[in-house]
């Protein structure tokens, strides 16, 4: 009898238990899971997230600067390729294919978008955006993001739009730099450094745009010892200096066969390198290791006083003032600890200026634009002599071409 009761109880319990299990499964089916980790978009739409948004966009532009320094460095003869990777080899040979352009194009474009998208978000979320130091800084970095793109990209494309002239990057940069200066002025003294950095950016942009008076004007506002950098760090892989990785961690890019190599390892303190008595990763060239970036955390310069003096020199040279221009150039050389050079003709002065920009801006992602700007226009016979047959800018990446409906002609 007892057993029978147990049996009935068990059966009854089982029926109830089965029903309950079905119910539980029904409830669980509707489970909504939110995973930790990635930050969801809505979480950034608050004033308190403004600093995070700014740091993020700055970080992206800094990455872009480091990437540009490496890839455009290899592509522009700052460095020579001796890699096991085909695209690095192609860059080194001056071949920049659409399908290999993504390594630079994508990072630089994402940085620009993030910076400009961050400006929009900060305008929405900050209580007094026109007096916000965050917004001033965002404009500053958006300006440099555009300047970096201008220095390496063949054409300007914004937010999936139609291709425009490369100069649009610089025009856009000018707008951001001016906004940065305006907002920084409203903020006050605490934003002075932002304004100073923006002025240096304006000098760079106006030079490329051919507005030489303004280029000289803003360059003149920047002191000799000015330095503005994209910070690099050993804190994470993303923050590492890319040239350091490619030349110290591995040996994909060598100084061998470049202009700097001709000077010798100690020929110019601004282009240091070391013969490691081995070949590069590709096994094809002696491996001369660059020593400008000796640590993974070595910063990548974005603007500096010496460049401002060379901008002034170029403006003078364009005005036919060879002597004054050479004075500016030699001032830079003296400050760098190298002997002055002489030039009596404009052609000689252009070569001197071209070489000086090369040594001053070496491995800073600037040479590709200078090759195109000075070499192809016959201003400098020096760079004109070694850029023959080389691609001088990065086309839109394969991804941009494939996904942007305005680029069907490039497919």
């Amino acid at each position, binding site marked *: 009898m007892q057993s029978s009761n147990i049996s009935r109880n068990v059966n009854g319990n089982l029926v109830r238990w*089965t029903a309950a299990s079905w119910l539980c499964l029904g409830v669980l089916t509707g489970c909504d899971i939110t995973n930790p980790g*990635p930050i969801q978009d809505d979480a950034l739409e608050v004033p308190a997230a403004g600093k995070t948004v700014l740091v993020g966009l700055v970080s992206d532009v800094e990455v872009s600067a480091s990437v540009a320094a490496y890839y455009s460095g290899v592509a522009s003869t700052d460095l020579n390729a001796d890699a096991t990777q085909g695209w690095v080899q192609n860059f080194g040979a001056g071949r920049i294919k659409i399908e290999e352009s993504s390594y630079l194009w994508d990072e630089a474009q994402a940085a620009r978008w993030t910076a400009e998208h961050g400006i929009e978000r900060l305008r929405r979320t900050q209580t007094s955006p026109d007096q916000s130091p965050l917004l001033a800084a965002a404009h500053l970095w958006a300006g440099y993001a555009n300047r970096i793109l201008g220095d390496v990209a063949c054409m300007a494309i914004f937010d999936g739009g139609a291709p425009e002239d490369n100069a649009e990057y610089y025009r856009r940069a000018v707008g951001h730099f001016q906004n940065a200066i305006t907002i920084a002025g409203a903020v006050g003294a605490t934003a002075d450094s932002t304004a100073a950095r923006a002025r240096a950016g304006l000098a760079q942009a106006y030079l490329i745009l051919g507005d030489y008076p303004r280029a000289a004007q803003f360059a003149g506002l920047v002191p000799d010892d000015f330095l503005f950098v994209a910070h690099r760090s050993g804190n994470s892989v993303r923050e590492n200096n890319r040239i350091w990785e490619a030349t110290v961690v591995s040996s994909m890019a060598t100084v061998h066969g470049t202009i700097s190599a001709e000077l010798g390892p100690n020929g110019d303190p601004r282009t240091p390198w070391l013969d490691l008595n081995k070949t590069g990763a590709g096994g094809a060239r002696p491996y001369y290791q660059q020593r400008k970036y000796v640590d993974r955390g070595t910063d990548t310069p974005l603007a500096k006083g010496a460049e401002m003096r060379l901008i002034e020199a170029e403006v003078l040279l364009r005005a036919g003032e060879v002597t004054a221009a050479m004075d500016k150039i030699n001032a830079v050389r003296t400050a760098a600890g190298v002997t002055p050079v002489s030039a009596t003709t404009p052609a000689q002065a252009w070569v001197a200026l071209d070489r000086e920009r090369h040594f001053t801006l070496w491995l800073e992602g600037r040479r590709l634009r200078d090759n195109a700007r000075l070499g192809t226009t016959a201003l400098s016979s020096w760079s004109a002599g070694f850029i023959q047959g080389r691609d001088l800018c990065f086309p839109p990446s394969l991804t941009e071409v494939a996904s942007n409906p305005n680029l069907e002609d490039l497919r």
Partner: protein
Amino acid sequence: MLQIPLALVFMTAAAASSDAQLAMSVVDAGPLARPARLNLERVPLANGLQLLHERSGVALAFSSRLVPARQLVSCPCESATVGQALDHMLAGLGLKATELGGDMVIIAPARNDRARNPEDARLPSAGPDALESVRADDIAGRIVGRVVASSGEPVGEAQIAIDGTGFRTTSGPDGRYAIAGVPDGTHRVIARRIGYAAESRTVTVAGGDVTLDFTMNPVSIRLDEVVVTGTAGQARRREVGNSIGTIDNERLAAAPRTTMSEMLQGQVAGVQQFANEGQVGSGSTITIRGLSSLTQSSEPLIYIDGVRVNNATYMNNSLTRTTATGNPGANGAQNSPKPLDNINPDDVLRIEVIRGPAATTLYGTEAAAGVIQVFTKRGQFGTRPQWNLTLGGGVRTQTANSLGPVVGKDPTFLGLKPFLRNGAQHEADLSVAGGNDVIRYFVAANHEYAEGTLPKNDSRRAGLRANFDFQPQDKLSIHVSSAFSNRTSHFLESGDNTYGFLLNVFRGSQDYTGGNHAMLLDIDNASRTDHLVTGVTLTHTGIRNVTSKLTVGIDYTNSFNDETLPFDFPLLRTGQRNTSSWTHRTLTADLASTWSKSLGSKLSSSFSAGGQFYHDYDHTLIGTAENFGGPGQVTLSSGANTRASEAQLTVVNAGFFVQEMLGFNDRFFVTVGARADGNSAFGSNLGLQLYPKVSASYVISDESFWPKWWQTMKLRGAWGQAGKAPGAFDAVRTWTPVAGYDGQPGVTPANVGNPDLGPERTSEVELGFETSVLDDRLSADVSYYRRTTNDALFRVTAPPSEGFLISSLRNVGTLRSNGLELSVTGVVLQKRNVELSLTGQYSTNESEVVDLGGAPAFTVGFASLGQWVRQGYPMVSVFGRQVTNPDDIAEPQYATDQYLGSVYPTFNYGFSMNLRLFQRFTLTALGEGAGGHVALNNFPWQSARRNLWPECNDRQPLTDQAAIWRARCAGPLQDRESWIRPADYFKLRTIGATYQVPKGVVPGAESASLSLQIQNPWKWSKHPGLDPELTRGGTFAVFPARYEYYQLSPARLVTVAARLSY
């Protein structure tokens, strides 16, 4: 504790064998609910029960003291269930039938306080003696004899019946049987057993004993075999409208015994296992019918005893290091263990494989790539403890053949030979199985140590398994399955890796070590894994023919990987340590109920409904330390600079299904069903997803018009859908936290998000047949499938100028694949001392990207590999420059962007052989091949660039060579594409020999055997590299791209093993 008086057990082979054990662990219609298919008129009750058992497949256990065996009974039970038939036959006897669990029914007194006579508590084995004791005083005549196989071995559990009567019995373990009380006259006696062709003979009884022996021939079509995979519960193979690949004990005998992955090699048509890497402890890749997705995993779901387990490879180590170009994970061991390989192969009883959505519908959103169910061994009721001990050992070597056609020919193996060694291998397995009327058990322990052929590569695995089955209550059975394993593997740095051992060795002095390759042996890499799979299945039967089953289980893994570059390591003097700790947990809750009923004399119905809930959780901690203060043992804390990262991921999938199976005349079956699934990874705008299915099978050979010489023909067809869910974050717009200047927190765009994101939906039509001829000695299983994936998840990249560089998933594509699968098994030779059976299989897989849905063509893996997803081409195709004048003695001419071939094989084939000699020797062989695809030869390409590749060095001067060789060998910038070459291969996976030691030679042993197996004895390949199956592996495998890059070939392994049973 219940004590059940039993004296007789009528069991079919299926019920008493492994299939019955399987049946205990799965949902069943319940034996009492099964069709009786019986029509008796005045036969002795014992014979009636026996016939009922025969017809229904249900094992009946009863006491000879309680059941009046001689009482004549009638039962017009053609359309009744087993329960109704028993009620009819036992009416008025004070007996009632209750389910004991699985396929067994016990007949006992109807009162609850059952007899407790200790003598009745014993469970004698089935057989003629027991039957004889029932009916000893009623003997009119007796047919006695012995059933043996054509090989001479006794055949137990064979059913012996006098045709047209209720007289029947079952042979004992020694093959002997007896049928008592046989009336005088001439009778036709039939012997049947699953796995053998039926035999019939005529005998004349004239009182007394007459001897009638049977010799049975094995067959391979087993339509009454019970399968569980792809069905709502269990089903006989004849009822299933789709193909099911089964790997049973006999098939496993020829398989490699070292890992579970290897056991699957060449066993089931359409299933391919890629070795990936030859270092011991490495994981592999398994695909069924090729790729099922281009963005999600194409590996099948894996269940072990009903509990879902992680089917991916474990995270490998060295996650935080980078190449010069910033690609993470390019260093480290690049080897990841596979969870499936934590199972001890000796614990496996049987494996079932279903190959596509036509069969996997009931598994829902994550089952488009197929399902593999592994069933482990269990004890049996009424058996004494049986101890099994296996001791084995062997040696693993790299040979000229294993290292490929070019490296193998070089006297120094291109510099590798000085580092190679003979790797030791040994294993020990001990298990005990048995059971009584209350509990069954299988408990096993194992230990295996494998040494690689390169220094510092080894793998040690230890495991415990405990499987228990309880019967605490008449209608309730409980099955517990638990296994724990611990595995520690050490690796050399591998693959596309600055510190990769083979990469540096094969580059000679033009490497990263300056030719001092031995320094790389200072790097330590290890993976340590604790893996627990445990589950409980409760099966409740008997409430109005409804059987319910609930399985609750957990798959838990903790894997710790570390890589240490010691202080003063020449390439990084201050040292570095990378670790990853990965915890994975899958919770399974699976509830299903089946209601079976006969609908008239010819129609049967089985309605099932159920729901499943799966909860996956991953937790990853990654740490890096650099700049050690000095030499010695280090931890992360030893570094002056440390970095860490953490990730957590939870995915929930839950759904319901219903299924109705209608049977007509036990030969025509139609099944319809559907499943509704929800998944936490779906977009917020997406609700439950519905996956329907329909299938039919027709055993046409059961029809009267079917010719007798054509023993079996089952036609089948199935259509069904299954899905493949996106990843946990794919539907959400997210930003990734990044560190800015001075460690300040920032965010950068991550995933653009898609609220409409849903699963891939794959539909599949499968048509086929299973047939046998020549007295079932030749059988074939043929399937054709056509699979279409709509809403295929493609990574669609927005223009980079819109900010989000990481492509996001969109349900935009259409994929299609079709193929033919043929499996033929034949008993070629069958003599007393020689028996030879062969199995061959061939499968094709033609895939096509039908529609990219507006998404641009995209590369998989690294862009430079040239492995593309393009409309109108196979799912992963290689494109690149092609030499248009390959055979001309001229400079190469090129055509750009040419289709160069499929990355995945378009056909596979295999064979297995089993040759038994003199009843004691067994020789086995297993081979497998694939072709129709190409491989990128990175290793030869890199060597050629350095003038180190013999194929180029032997062709100097190149001016005398054909254009293709000039392209391959012309200098440091030669085309990588010219090294894309056919990768067809055939591999003899194993050859083996087993000697069955005569009884008595080993004192006390019930059986003993000695075996020799050679794994990977020989291969042939068009691939000039080390091995055509190699690819970059581990977590940073660039799936679905495949490319070798200095992975090691699988080695030859020679093992000997002794197996003892007590």
